[in-house]
């Protein structure tokens, strides 16, 4: 029996432990600015919080996702298209202006280095 099966080097961590966020609206598009809680988390966000993963997270809630990087602010900016039931005054949603899409993104889980995941779990 091979005894060299590697232990997983990553563990899934909810984004709320790695980032904070603020969201707003432009018409029927919501934007979510996702900001690393510590500068050393930013590369993890950049690697793991991909357009595809965010698109899967919000499947059925938005029509498309765009991502922009702001390494100077340790932040990513996401545009979530058609997220607001028409947006502005037309929208019937409680969150017509996308104010809490921010924390909806923080529900997402991403792989983080296992050592970091353990440290966050203890905190």
């Amino acid at each position, binding site marked *: 029996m091979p005894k060299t099966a590697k232990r997983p080097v990553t563990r899934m961590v909810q984004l709320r432990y790695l980032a904070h966020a603020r969201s707003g609206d432009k*018409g029927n598009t919501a934007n979510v600015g996702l900001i690393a809680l510590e500068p050393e988390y930013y590369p993890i966000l950049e690697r793991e919080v991909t357009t595809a993963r965010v698109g899967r997270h919000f499947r059925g809630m938005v029509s498309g996702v765009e991502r922009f990087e702001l390494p100077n602010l340790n932040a990513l900016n996401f545009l979530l298209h058609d997220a607001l039931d028409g947006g502005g005054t037309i929208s019937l*949603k409680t969150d017509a202006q996308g104010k809490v899409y921010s924390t909806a993104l923080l529900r997402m889980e991403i792989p983080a280095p296992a050592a970091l995941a353990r440290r966050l779990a203890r905190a």
Partner: protein
Amino acid sequence: MTPVGGRTVRIAAGQGFWGDWLEAPVRQVRGGPIDYLMMDYLAEVTMSIMQKQKSRDPAAGYARDFVPLMERVLPDLVERGVRVTTNAGGVNPRGCAEAVLAVARKLGLPRRVRVGLVSGDDILGRLDELMARGHDLSDMETGRPLSDIRERVLSANAYLGMGPIVEALRGGADVVVTGRVTDTGLTLGPIVHEFGWSADDWDKVAAGTVAGHIIECGAQASGGNLLKGWRSVKGLADPGFPIIEASDDGTFVVTKHAGTGGVVSVASVTEQLVYEMGDPRGYITPDGVADFTTIRLRPAGRNRVRVSGIHGGPRTPMLKVSIAYFWGYKAVGTLVYAWPEAYDKARAADAVLRRRLSDLGLEFDQILTEFVGVNATHGRLSGPPDPDIPEVQLRVGVRAHERAPVERFTREIAPLVLTGPPSVTGFAGGRPAVEEVVAYWPALIDRREIEPHVRVEILEA
């Protein structure tokens, strides 16, 4: 680096939107030294609300809150030499300016107050002429031409930049009242005026624009709505609104008055920087294009953040136009269902309601059901609710171009109390109101069509 002894200009945010905390401007003026008080009132659909008010009363059409605020602070402003920039003028900047002059006269101040009046952003009366000359003013989001909804347009205003504000300040205005000037122009204008920056010094224009963006939402940059470490933000009962200390080299510090609540930190400033952001490399205003990927933030003492490194590019040939048009009607009805099986009861009530609306043959553009306490804010991401959830609010919204189906919907909520699932309450507010929906239509126009019409007048009390 700011040279030792280098002069700074202090611009204090007093209001971040129409309806913001009324004590803030007073505290900004009295709480410590500032040079300018910046009061931003206009959101995307505010202009249409003001247009509606003006159609009923020709003297209305501006942020009325602004006038009693001026009555409170004008004596301090005059004594301390603090000047004001505001877009409170809405669709009637002249009415607003005259109301400020009337207040100044009534107060009997030790010297005359000069009000700068900026007009020329309102193009409602020019729409047909502009369209006849080939400006289709199509919706930036959908591409539809304005002709599709022309007869339903209620207001149309081009976004002006800092130019007319600089001109008014140069003309000696103590209070500059504008219509649709950009939020950022209200902060950039005073900085450009004080340092005599050239309007095509793009990096500095970008820096002043970023400063404006940081404080345009008031306390949202100084601890309000701050998610990171929200429990440790103290003193939100008396939050210090943000203040920019700008230097001639294009760098600036974000801070707040000593002794106030809230916090100014790299986190608080960063959250505001990403608010309502699109492509961070191209933050477009009438004054230039700022590159948010060049912004550097560093802590510079207690409640102080230094901002530097900002680059920008030339302004575009187009100005954005904010058009509001009549869309139709909407209404939202709510009922609260109690334990046990609260969520199931609320869902059953929704099914009954929808069946009745359908049996009545009512047609809607949209019927949206949310269950507050279960999924109203995060949709399916919230997962299944606790089966023992103590209560759930059923919230159903409808919209239609016609009034009649929406009106009838509002009469279908209360009957559910006696004819639907049990354990229901929370209908004391009576029948939901039918609201008129005024929608937003963003467009672009060649700035050469607008700029020759912009006027700056200096009025004296």
